[in-house]
């Protein structure tokens, strides 16, 4: 089976972000970057399929400047076979622009399966996977939390609000991966050494004119400090009243 996984390098989300001087992007100074978690689960899914299906091949693709090579090598050190960097000065915000560049690359690869994370936490669009499927004319299943492939057919589970949906699809297909599908393996130390010797091809990304741009970025307003109404049981009536009349949560 020929599998492609499209991955993105994202900042560690457990930090306080600062807005850059252009007021439309984050200041990347001092930030730690790593593979998007959803994408890491997509890589893991591809590797598990590879282990089950002898002769399979996993290619990871990332669009962006040269720093994404580190992210590609992380996937290679987990066990992917080769990497492709679609080189661009920056990652456009416009999902369609990215999807067009990826689909150009993916068309040539004759992949049976193309995996994405369901979204990236930095832009939270969740658009690139389905858009790429559309451009390729492939079926698309989003946010899967289980996956089986047998005899050229696939089944997957999707978690819905209060229900689970089981879908069937034919290959080739585009899938986007949700939490719960698997736990991504750590790159082993041997894997890290082996990754240096695996092929990593660099090609210019075919970037069309983006139709969507970030105009302005703002931090959410500071939360107001809490108020202590009183202490002990005596304070309860007033607290209940304030929760009803002021906070309007009861």
């Amino acid at each position, binding site marked *: 089976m020929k599998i492609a996984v499209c991955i993105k390098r994202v900042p560690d989300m457990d930090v306080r972000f600062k807005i850059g001087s252009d007021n439309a992007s984050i200041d990347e100074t001092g930030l730690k970057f790593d593979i998007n978690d959803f994408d890491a689960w997509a890589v893991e899914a591809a590797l598990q399929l590879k282990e089950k299906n002898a002769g399979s091949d996993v290619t990871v693709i990332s669009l962006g400047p040269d720093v994404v090579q580190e992210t590609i*090598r*992380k996937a290679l050190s987990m066990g992917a076979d080769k990497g492709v960097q679609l080189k661009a000065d920056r990652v456009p915000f416009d999902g369609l622009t990215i999807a067009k560049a990826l689909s150009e690359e993916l068309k040539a690869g004759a992949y049976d399966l193309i995996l994405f994370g369901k979204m990236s936490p930095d832009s939270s669009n969740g658009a690139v996977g389905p858009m790429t499927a559309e451009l390729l004319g492939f079926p698309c299943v989003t946010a899967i939390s289980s996956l089986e492939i047998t005899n050229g057919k696939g089944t997957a589970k999707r978690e819905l609000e209060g229900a689970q949906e089981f879908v069937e699809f034919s290959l080739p297909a585009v899938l986007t991966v949700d939490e719960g599908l698997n736990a991504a393996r*750590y790159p*082993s*130390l041997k894997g*890290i*050494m082996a990754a240096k010797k695996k092929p990593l091809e660099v090609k210019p990304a075919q970037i069309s004119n983006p139709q969507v741009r970030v105009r302005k970025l703002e931090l959410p307003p500071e939360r107001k400090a809490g108020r202590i109404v009183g202490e002990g049981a005596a304070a309860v009536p007033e607290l209940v009243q304030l929760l009803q009349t002021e906070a309007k949560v009861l």
Partner: protein
Amino acid sequence: MPSDFYNIDSALSEEERAVRDTVHAFVDQHVLPVIGDCYVEGRFPKEIIPGMADLGMFGANLPEQYGCAGLNNVAYGLIMQELERGDSGVRSFASVQGALVMYPIYAFGSEDQKTHYLPKMASGEIIGCFGLTEPDYGSNPSGMITRAREQKDGSWVINGAKMWITNGSTAQVAIVWAKTGDDQSDKSIRGFIVPTDTPGFTAKDQKGKLSLRASDTSELVLQDVRLPATALLPKSGGIKSPLMCLTQARYGIAWGAIGAAQACYEEALAYAGNRVMFGKPIAGFQLQQQRLAEMLTELVKGQLLALHLGRLKDAGTFSPQQVSLAKRNNVSIATDIAREARRLLGANGILAEYSSMRHMANLESVYTYEGTHDIHTLILGQAVTGLNAFE
């Protein structure tokens, strides 16, 4: 990361950072959740051995042809740092397996011994221990009384006792150092690969430890242990051979101590920010700020020392005396940092729920093993003055 005040990350290669991140994540997931209980129960968490082996942590700086990861020495040091961020006992386990058992087989073993043992030790199938120290010969290993006598048919018979042996009761093989001649000279000391199921070999857990409780420390007794000629490490010869192993292990300790110090510093910093006393976080009081500033300063110096030593080792230009300086300094400052962190945590600092007191107690062993702090002082004294103050 709060303990990377000097952005030492930027001095590491992508591969070195990747190795560090893998071991860091492993320790977060598999060591930190269990280590407090293991320490209280006095048991080594054997269940983590397969995971460590799968990731390639044993003998990680030995060549790939023997099933090892073939990492450079800085990456190896970072593994030790991250493991000891979990616990000195976990780092000790890996140090012994890699630097004290796999290394001597690699350095002094025959090709047959290397191809037989190294891949199985890298995969964790065989666990090893290292028997040099004896009940009456610690800082002076040359005085050892364990004897190996060559028989007419070329086989060997070993008699003696070894003490303070990490992994002693867990191991399937022991590297045992013994005098092969009758004289008192240390020139006849040679190393043997001893399967621990050989008749006459017994290992006994050393009870009553108040330090390194999550580690197997045992006493070995060898009574008429008969070994074939092939048990001898053919290229070992003289006290220099085991000392070369110790240099490898001490190098890892210089890094490991930094991991313990980082854990304590980060715990203290987080605690100081959250613990409110007299109406504000204790981090806002000058006394605690001085503590944190001193801890951080020594930590950063130790990090830079370990990294530069690693670069020298990778360049092949380091000396055992430079390793002595780094082991001596880094363990000493880590011990101080752990104690100050314990104090900053107040009463909570004595609980196993926090890590500082566990590290503090562990580091007292690390201060004493692999060349005591005092012996390293004398090594440095001799190195700079040319005068021997050992005897």
